[in-house]
């Protein structure tokens, strides 16, 4: 398409490799002996040594990393120490839940934050704008796990409108998605408002107003297309925040996603799972940023020329 995007695309595998190496090394430095954990507390020294050999832990680190890459290419990311299942299976069974929660929360955040921000920017200083600013900064300040717990108490325990925790049915996603969406909603709302205000200040908008164009025409035909770039940037940038947020939210609500998998893996020192989930998280963020950049390149004629 153009040089900028091409360079970014080519950089992606490099970033991926760098991240995987970093994660790999970090995980190797974790305290404790994974062979001993796998073999169990009552294993003899020979049994532990056998596990060592089987996992290839006695090889030099470089060889281990290459072996890891080779296995990963075949789709084998190792076996979970705690559950004894292949890591790929664990990921496969947990990832859909995180995706569902993330998308739901993200949808809420964008669906409410972007229009709210645009409306606020349309009438700066007026009541809606003031209320919106206050609401968004409050949303940013609320600890998501506390909101989750309070929502549980109100909606699940007292009112019994919604289930408490877990992922049994469609209604189980409501509370976690709400709790998770608050902070990104605030952030996206504020950033959208700021971007819109910036655009509305531009000369060509003032010209359009002076020419007597209807507000609707101004927004839809002039302001929004220009705002699409920063809004896509904002939306793309915040995906990382949503992913980060799922880690805590899933623990609060016992939502069986990869965030909870990661937290448990850290507590159990389940190295293969820590490695795999970290990789997945990083890959998602990088992919999201890449997608955002490509969307921007597509939307913004200035970028197209590279």
């Amino acid at each position, binding site marked *: 398409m153009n040089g900028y995007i091409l360079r970014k695309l080519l950089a992606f595998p490099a970033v991926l490799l760098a991240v995987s190496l970093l994660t790999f090394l970090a995980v190797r430095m974790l305290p*404790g002996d994974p062979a*001993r*954990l796998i073999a*169990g*507390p*009552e294993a003899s020294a020979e049994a532990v040594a056998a596990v060592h050999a089987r996992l290839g832990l006695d090889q030099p680190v470089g060889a281990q990393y290459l072996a890891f890459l080779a296995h990963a290419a075949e789709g084998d990311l190792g076996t979970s*120490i*705690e*559950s004894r*299942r292949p890591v790929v299976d664990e990921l496969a*069974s947990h990832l859909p839940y995180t995706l569902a929660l993330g998308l739901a929360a993200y949808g809420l955040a964008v669906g409410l934050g972007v229009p709210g921000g645009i409306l606020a920017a349309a009438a700066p200083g007026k009541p809606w704008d003031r209320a919106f600013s206050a609401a968004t900064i409050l949303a940013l300040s609320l600890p998501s796990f506390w909101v989750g717990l309070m929502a*549980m108490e109100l909606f*699940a*325990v007292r009112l*019994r409108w919604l*289930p*408490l*925790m*877990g992922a*049994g*049915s*469609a*209604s*189980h996603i409501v509370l976690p998605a709400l709790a998770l969406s608050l902070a990104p909603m605030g952030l996206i709302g504020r950033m959208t408002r700021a971007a819109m205000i910036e655009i509305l200040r531009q000369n060509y908008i003032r010209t359009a107003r002076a020419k007597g164009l209807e507000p609707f025409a101004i927004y839809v035909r002039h302001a929004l297309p220009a705002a699409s770039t920063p809004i896509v940037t904002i939306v793309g940038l915040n995906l990382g925040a949503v992913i980060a947020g799922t880690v805590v939210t899933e623990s609060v609500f*016992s939502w*069986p996603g990869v965030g909870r998998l990661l937290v*448990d893996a850290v*507590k*159990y*020192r*389940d190295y293969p799972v820590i490695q795999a989930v970290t990789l997945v998280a990083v890959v998602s963020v990088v992919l999201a940023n890449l997608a955002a950049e490509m969307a921007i390149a597509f939307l913004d004629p200035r970028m197209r020329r590279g």
Partner: protein
Amino acid sequence: MAIPPSLPDRRAVCLAIARSALAAGVAGTLAGCGRGGVRRDAGALTIMQTEGPRAMDPANHTATLTGAILDPMYEGLVRLDAAGAAVPLLATSWQTPDGLTWTFRLRDGVRFHDGAPMDAAAVAQSFQRLIDPRSALAAAGKFKPIIGSVETVGASAVQFRLRKPYADLLTLLSASQASIVSPRAAAAGTLQRVACGTGPYAFVAWASDEYVAQRRSPGYWGRAARTETLRWTWSSEPSVLYMALRTGDADIATPLSPVFSRLAAANPALSLVHSPGTAFFWIALNTRLPPLDDVRVRQALNFATDRAALVAGLLGGFGQPATAPLADRTPFAHPDPTRLRFDPGQARRLLSAAGHGAGLGVAVATQAADEPLAEALQAMWAEVGVALEIRRLEGGVYASEAFAAPRVKVAEGLGGVLASWSSGVAPDLQLRPLFDSASMAPAGANLGFYDDPAVDALIDAAVGSRDPAERRRLYAAVQARIVAAAPAVLLYTRDDLVGARRGVSGLGVRPGGELVVSGAFKA
């Protein structure tokens, strides 16, 4: 569908279609969005525990909660009745001339869920895989030291040859881990994930992290269970268990935390079954790590512990302070309230005498669930100048640290391990694994490396004797020695707390908290 040409009919047909579509839509919505979305029919019971099963193989776990899930599907040679006496199950009779050789006559006409016959060969194989020296099964350690060999005597009887006389053999054989498993399944290696026994319920499915489903087995040899399907779920969150009971998502929930047990008892829609349990809590002190190698320090820690306050505050009164190394319920328990009393003054005196008047630090490893207990002790021990450092560990890491060898524990400065244990009503099953020198970690659960040959001898003598009076005398002596040596801070026994919706009957709880639901039903 052809619509008739005349107007009124067409309208009627359209209305009919619309009405049925609406009804279908409403029904579908209601079905999908029912509270929790779980269909509950009368022939099903949902049981919620705090932990999922470790395995479907009874020999490959040591967890009470897993035992509860496996109980409807598996049976052993004997089971214990309410009084703790052994009654026939898969064995119809037994005899032993000398306490060393035991012959069991097996029940005829029993088949495993996969159709294989339950015969002497199957029973022998079941135990063979437990006592095989190369066996890596989790429960093997319980049986290997006691059972020397198991042989078939014809097709309907087996003979156990024990390594030494063992009076509590029947109690041992009634444990979940001694269940008889299908030889076909064992050979195929599928037992870990697919259960296959002889019990009133057969395995249907185990969705990891989610549920275990069981269905009444039509070919069961005994009295049929009253409920068609059992569904087991779990959540580590205490609030979830209680809420599930309230909403009806669970018919039975255990173990209920003390806070919610009080609420359940007060809730007219729920009932609370609580019985004195044998879930025993203690801190194993590392007798190899200075200053804990000084008996006065260890005794001081015991005096610094206000057990009554722990039971009041942490258990909500649903428990008993420890007065002996054995739980109250266990036969031959020998209470010693003088030595195991709360006396901070005495604690301080002992610490000064041992040269630690200025205070000392003890690091204790604990699992997340027991952390409140550690936190309460932290404040108590601070009163006498002992700083308790809490090392919170999970799952495999906890097991690894708890069962580490002396060298490792000393190197890491681990002074104690907070642990709990429910071993039913056999005194030997409590004392031997915890206090016998042969059970020193990593081989067994003597996590503090307590080593007293006199105690070893007394334990062996007590389990070898068949005279109750002599056993009482011997066990009293063992417990007195253990309390004097204070290799552990004995804490309390927690009651078994089971919450259920009113209308659920036929529930049982084994000593130790293992739930028995095979006879349960909803009225």
